């Protein structure tokens, strides 16, 4: 009994802390930087990390098995993965762009997991015979960590695309007004730049220079994180195959979940290969990574909604209680 109350307390603490952190970030972005609060947001993320870790450990002790047996637990693990990535990148280099991605991701996954949609699953369930294996720890944890890292990386690529193409969106809006206005030198420059938007060869204003720097940083960080996520995904898929061979006698069954995990792996392999060519680096690889974002969600959630195949443990039905 004490464990479940402890669990509840930890869940609510982490949820509220992350909400406060996000609010602070938004205030900093939209209003003015409130001196002294910036540090507290980082401290808040540290508190969240420890809370979610405590939550997982509590669940582990209470149920007797590693906390990764159904969808609710894997969502909590996913939000733990996000806060872990946040911690590591914070300690490697203070004040980076990654925190803008990891903190909201952590709260959204945490929020979805604790929301009313999945209340049926909050209780720790018992493990089916097929899941009682040491491989559970390795396979599922590697997969979920891989998802977390790849999601972060693809979100960074999406951010890169948004920043690069914001100019085009603005210009398309401007074009409608150009007929009514007289051309000024600045606007003619804009139209020239529009044709060069895919080549980062213009430094006509300091604003462009900083934008270029930002996109380059995003590009490089996205590459590193996706490489790391790719390693985890590879290890997860292969350990899953070995486990399947030990349990059911065949290491690959073209199960929907397995197939979609392989599709995710292939798409990110395409991303890594596009980056070998210097010409295509940048926007093209970011487009592929954005596709990867959608594919990860299909693999993680979409297949579970079908509820068929060997991976039916993760399935759920959307009922509102």
């Amino acid at each position, binding site marked *: 009994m004490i464990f479940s109350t402890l669990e509840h307390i930890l869940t609510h603490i982490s949820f509220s802390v992350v909400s406060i952190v996000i609010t602070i970030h938004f205030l900093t972005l939209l209003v003015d930087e409130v001196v002294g609060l910036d540090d507290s947001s980082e401290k808040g993320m540290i508190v969240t990390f420890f809370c979610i870790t405590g939550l997982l450990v509590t669940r582990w002790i209470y149920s007797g098995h590693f906390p990764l047996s159904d969808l609710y637990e894997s969502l909590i693990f996913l939000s733990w993965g996000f806060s872990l990535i946040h911690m590591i990148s914070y300690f490697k280099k203070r004040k980076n762009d990654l925190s803008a991605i990891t903190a909201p991701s952590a709260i959204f996954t945490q929020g979805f997991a604790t929301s009313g949609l999945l209340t049926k699953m909050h209780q720790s369930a018992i493990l089916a015979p097929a899941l009682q294996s040491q491989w559970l720890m390795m396979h599922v944890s590697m997969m979920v960590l891989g998802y977390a890292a790849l999601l972060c990386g693809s979100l960074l690529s999406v951010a890169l695309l948004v920043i690069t193409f914001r100019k085009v969106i603005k210009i398309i809006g401007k074009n409608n007004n150009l007929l009514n206005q007289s051309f000024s030198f600045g606007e003619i420059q804009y139209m020239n730049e529009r044709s060069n938007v895919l080549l980062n060869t213009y430094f006509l204003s300091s604003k462009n220079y900083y934008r270029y720097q930002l996109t380059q940083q995003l590009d*490089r960080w996205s*590459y590193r994180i996706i490489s790391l996520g790719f390693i985890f995904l*590879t290890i997860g898929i292969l350990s899953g195959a070995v486990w399947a061979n030990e*349990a059911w006698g065949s290491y*690959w069954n*073209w199960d929907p979940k397995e197939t979609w995990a392989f599709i995710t792996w292939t798409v990110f392999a395409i991303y890594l290969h596009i980056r*070998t060519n210097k010409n295509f680096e940048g926007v093209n690889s970011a487009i592929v990574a954005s596709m990867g974002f959608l594919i990860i969600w299909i693999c993680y959630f979409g297949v579970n909604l079908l509820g068929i195949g060997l991976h039916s443990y993760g399935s759920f039905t959307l009922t509102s209680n």
Partner: protein
Amino acid sequence: METLFNPSKTAKLFVPNISLFKSSFLHSTFNPQTHILFNRKTLSFTINCRAKTSQGRKTDGKNISKKILLSDSAPELSNEDVEPKPKNGGGAWGLVRKLPKRVLAVLSNLPLAIGEMFTVAGLMALGTAIDQGEAPEFYFQKYPEENPVWGFFTWRWVLTLGLDHMFSSPIFLGMLVLLATSLMACTYTTQIPLVKAARRWRFLQSADAIRKQEFSDTLPRASVKDLGVVLMAAGYEVFLKGPSLYAFKGLAGRFAPIGVHLAMLLIMAGGTLSATGSFRGSVTVPQGLNFVVGDVLGPTGFLSTPTEAFNTEVHVNRFYMDYYDSGEVSQFHTDLSLFDLNGKEVMRKTLSVNDPLRYGGFTIYQTDWSFSALQILKDDEGPFNLAMAPLKLNGDKKLFGTFLPVGDTNSPNIKGISMLARDLQSIVLYDQQGKFAGVRRPNSKLPIEIDGTKIVIVDAIGSSGLDLKIDPGVPIVYAGFGALMLTTCVSYLSHAQIWALQDGTTVIVGGKTNRAKAEFPDEMNRLLDLVPEIVQSSISEQPG
């Protein structure tokens, strides 16, 4: 470099005795790669070049390398490295010779490989969207011709392209074969030369070349030797020659992608062997019965050959299940004995779900269970075995039932006692009207009175669902898996190269890295901060 070796000028710059530059080469273009070897009194250049003569492209593709010695004496021309002229015995033969090279060049094209990967991914997605392995009538219904999905997709598409068995269809397997050949071509043509290029290291002699690197910095009062020590402490391999320094780290990160490709080829080979050379089978054996391994296994492909172990007879001693306190099943166990042709017991083991039995190359897995029969005593007579029929099979949730007729067994409206069970623990009994009568556990031996009949449940006999498999490709596939995991991890390493030059008391440092571009400047700044600053001006450094 190009202009230096312009042939018309070269003839004048170098010793005019060089007979290499004859008139036939006047219209040649050279792409030289020079290695300068300092060799006491003589200066020798080795030039590898591809010569195109004005007589057409007869000598296209020929690599001629001549050693040119500039010395007081007449130069020697050593012809050791000249490749033999290709035999021009017929144009067709020349084409055939060129074909492998051209095919290789086409296959190792990166956009083609990316296109292939996209196609494979798309086909797999399609394979999950379309239900696999159903009867043709299912597709007639689901993708009818009168009302095609998306306007054109009918069952004709599904059945002719083999989309109902996508993962063994020719279109999918063909794409995989193409991808494998692209992998091999790319490894041979692109990756191996890249590694050779990366392994070749050289010192940069000019400060300008160093400043042009991605990251460069200047240390005003430092010594290049101190820098070398700092780099060594950080894990770099440092080479110091005179005033210049070269250091690198993480060269394994350049080799690892080749390992990744080779591991994938290994996995594909193992998978092919599995698909063509293995045996599979499943059997549901009631407790107490036997089966022979060879009777159950069926081949999967043309390479499957049976082994001696197929004569083993398997006897199910006991099948039992463990339960949680809540009543759900926690584990299945089967106690098996294996007997050889002579009847001698060669192995005895209790299997459970994640714990298979391995013997003689084949493996037995516990995958399923069933309810075979219910043993009862009726009015203290018996025991009678009532066969249990499966009423509902929904994965792990099953329902079995049996029926004990009471009264006149020949009348059409026969009534009796029904017994239902979800697992081997407890049996639920219903009377002749279908009303609930009671629950009994087989171990308790408690009698129950239903409509005047006394029933005692003696035993619940289960049957074990076993899958058998022999797969020669598994060791190869496992080796490929291990190699892939390892090489993928290693290819995360970033190959960093650093050059430095001592210019008076200043040290000019430059570096580049291939993967960790975001973190490299920070790491470099951190290392350069560690280099001590030389304060006294009276220190004289002897370079080298």
